[in-house]
């Protein structure tokens, strides 16, 4: 604890979320002070707990390094929901919770005996947050997608790729953390409503619709001009900037991003390049002509950037008032001076006895810095939740562990 109150202290959340999106909803609330328990089971271990690499190379569901940062903040209790006694205990936890999170398909919570009506019966003002792929109703409600392919149903994938080429897949689910964080906003809005009115509700969060908001700019072009955008590389999404792209630098797979939207920025760029003759030629003299000759402009610029170190060049361009930054890779993240200064990544000691690096408070709250804990060992909070919170006797608790209800 950091010795002071956090904004969401006193809010308790039961998180049935799995894989990535659901756990990030819980994490966001937990970083801000909520008490969040992920409900999972050894009867069906979450796939993300089984992904390598593992801490010190020891394969174990509580040691997956790729899982821990994504789940950090969530507590963990184990309940086998295939057993009626497991569902009963889950409902007891819900009765003591303000909000419930789930990211199954529509109807799965009902099949488990944990549908909205069942939850309301034990907790009348409960907020149930459901985040199926395409919402709780409508013709596509049962659509099957993975996190990384969900974007295909929003139009976003159709915009991603090299100019004029086919769509290039994003190799992980950008949607999952995006929806995880925006999902926390949805729950907080419902909490505000409950505070004013006393009423809970069942939030219908369609991941498709939430992600499609990012397609809004292209959607408006379709609405206004019936133009259907395609993959646009690193060009400005509204064609309002020249140059605007990622350009090669010295070294293997080194690049710099440069975006010029204003005349003053163009002048700064020309100055930084040492005012080469080509830059003052008619084809590049005005914003309109630069847009018209964008390919040629990018070609010229690449010839210049490829002779320079990405970081040095970014710093130099910044001194000339040009928006430029190095294009980082994963390794760079850990040593980039900006992320080091902002403590974006932190090394923590896991209660199981190993050290691991996870992301820390990636948002800086001036009064209440976020509380970041290592990812949860499976069943970490069983004793606390079942004995203290739900008041099971030692004997009953042991029995439920023995019969693999608490499992």
């Amino acid at each position, binding site marked *: 604890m950091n010795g002071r109150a956090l904004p969401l202290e006193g809010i308790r959340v039961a998180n049935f979320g799995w894989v990535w999106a659901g756990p990030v909803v819980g994490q966001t609330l937990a970083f801000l002070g909520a008490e969040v328990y992920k409900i999972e089971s050894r009867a069906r271990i979450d796939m993300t707990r089984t992904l390598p690499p593992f801490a010190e190379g020891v394969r174990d569901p509580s040691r997956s390094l790729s899982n821990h940062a994504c789940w950090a903040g969530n507590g963990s209790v184990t309940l086998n929901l295939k057993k009626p006694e497991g569902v009963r205990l889950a409902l007891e936890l819900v009765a003591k919770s303000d909000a419930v999170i789930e990211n199954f398909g529509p109807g799965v919570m009902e099949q488990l005996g944990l549908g909205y009506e069942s939850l309301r019966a034990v907790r009348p003002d409960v907020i149930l947050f459901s985040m199926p792929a395409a919402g709780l109703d409508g013709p596509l409600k049962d659509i*099957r997608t993975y996190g990384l392919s969900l974007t295909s149903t929003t139009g976003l994938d159709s*915009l991603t790729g*090299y100019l004029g080429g086919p769509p290039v*897949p994003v190799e992980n689910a950008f949607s999952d*953390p995006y929806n995880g964080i925006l999902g926390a906003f949805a729950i907080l809005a419902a909490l505000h*409503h409950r505070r004013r009115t006393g009423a809970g*509700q069942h939030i219908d969060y369609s991941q498709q619709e939430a992600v499609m908001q990012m397609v809004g700019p292209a959607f408006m072009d379709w609405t206004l001009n019936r133009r259907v955008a395609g993959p646009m590389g690193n060009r400005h999404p*509204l064609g309002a900037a020249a140059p605007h792209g990622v350009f090669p630098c010295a070294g293997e797979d080194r690049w710099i991003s440069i975006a010029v939207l204003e005349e003053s920025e163009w002048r700064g760029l020309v100055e930084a390049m040492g005012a080469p003759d080509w830059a003052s030629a008619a084809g590049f003299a005005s914003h309109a002509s630069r847009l018209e000759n964008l390919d040629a402009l990018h070609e010229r610029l690449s010839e210049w950037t490829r002779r320079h170190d990405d970081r040095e060049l970014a710093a130099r361009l910044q001194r000339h008032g040009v928006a430029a930054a190095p294009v980082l890779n994963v390794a760079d993240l850990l040593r980039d001076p900006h992320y080091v200064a902002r403590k974006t990544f932190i090394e923590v000691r896991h209660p199981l006895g190993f050290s691991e690096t996870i992301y820390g408070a990636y948002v800086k709250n001036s009064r209440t810095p976020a509380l970041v804990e290592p990812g949860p060992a499976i069943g970490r909070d069983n004793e606390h939740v079942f004995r203290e919170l739900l008041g099971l006797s030692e004997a009953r608790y042991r029995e439920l562990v023995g019969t693999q209800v608490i499992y």
Partner: protein
Amino acid sequence: MPEGALAGISVVELGEMVSAPYCARLFADYGADVIKVERPGTGDRARAWGPFPGDDPHIEKSGLYQYLNTGKHGITLDPATARGRALFLELVGGADVLIENASPRSLRERGIDYASLAAVNPRLVMISITPFGQTGPYADWKGYDLNAFHLSAAGSRYCGRPDQAPLEHGTFAADFFGAVTGAAWGLAACLGREQVGGGQQVDVSCAEAIAAVFVGGQNIGGYAQDGKFERRTGVGMPLGAPATIVPCKDGHVWMLALEPGQWNGLARVMGNPEWMELEMFQDMFARAQNSDAIYPLIEEWTMTRSKWEIMERCQEAGVPITAVFDVAEAAGHPHLAARGYIVEVQHPLLGALPVLGPPFRLPASTGRTGMAAPLLGQHNARVFGERLGLSESQRAELTAKGVI
């Protein structure tokens, strides 16, 4: 219509382009009272960006601006002038939340940084969303969405072909990510003011949020321990197959058949070709090892079918394959129509204008106003007159001086 979930929360937005405006739109979507402050004369720079009907630039017709600013009240005010600053402080003095994306330096120069604002309103939550954040060596760097996105390593790791440039997603992905991050963290800070003893600044760096949660989450622990890291491959999921975007007769499909049930389902839909039954192709990892052989065989089939046929038949067979919707197909899909996702607002110049509605449904507290984005300075009289008590002649004087 019941009141919106965020009714009673008063928000001031000093935002331009995408990040802060979208964050403030999320508050407006769910019933908060949002006043957007724009530069006199030209307004939010998004007004100059389009897309415009017929590509004809007009300050009141930018599609981007319309989309990001529905449901808000709009005023013009220049906080760089002494009188303008005083009015801005008065406005923020009565607000719960300020959402802004100005550079930290420009806030200091105008005397409207967090310290100055907290002095007049200690309960203020100031959500600052910038490419790089308020602190750190790049805090005063100039940056746009593209710069922030690529500083996160998202492109290097996850998007693009290995021998070509890393890619942004074809939209303002970093700005949107920063916006939702600011909304969640900022609303929590707002709701928790009683128990933490007041307001605070919520410092969001778009680059950092993506670097941490999207890229760092699954990569940084392994890299820190083993010193190994991955880069983009151009293939959706290089370790399993099939799992990537493949072409079909009329576009593309997201081809996914990893688990045995999915692979068998795909085989059935494809008419059980013999090669799919081969022992060596029964495991997703083995298939990925042989992807050079697998993908051309699958494409041979997809190229004879439409994306909708492939999606429908595969989904029926329990295989999570989807069509790659283009923007028009996404916008016109019956599913979204049935859910009422796209809403129409009435704009004085653009008429009935379809825009994407709120991102999620709060059934007990919808409260969308249906208001179009404000004309430049549309609510000056109301806000400066009714809220701040300026007379008509005072307003006229300030207008003449270019303050409002």
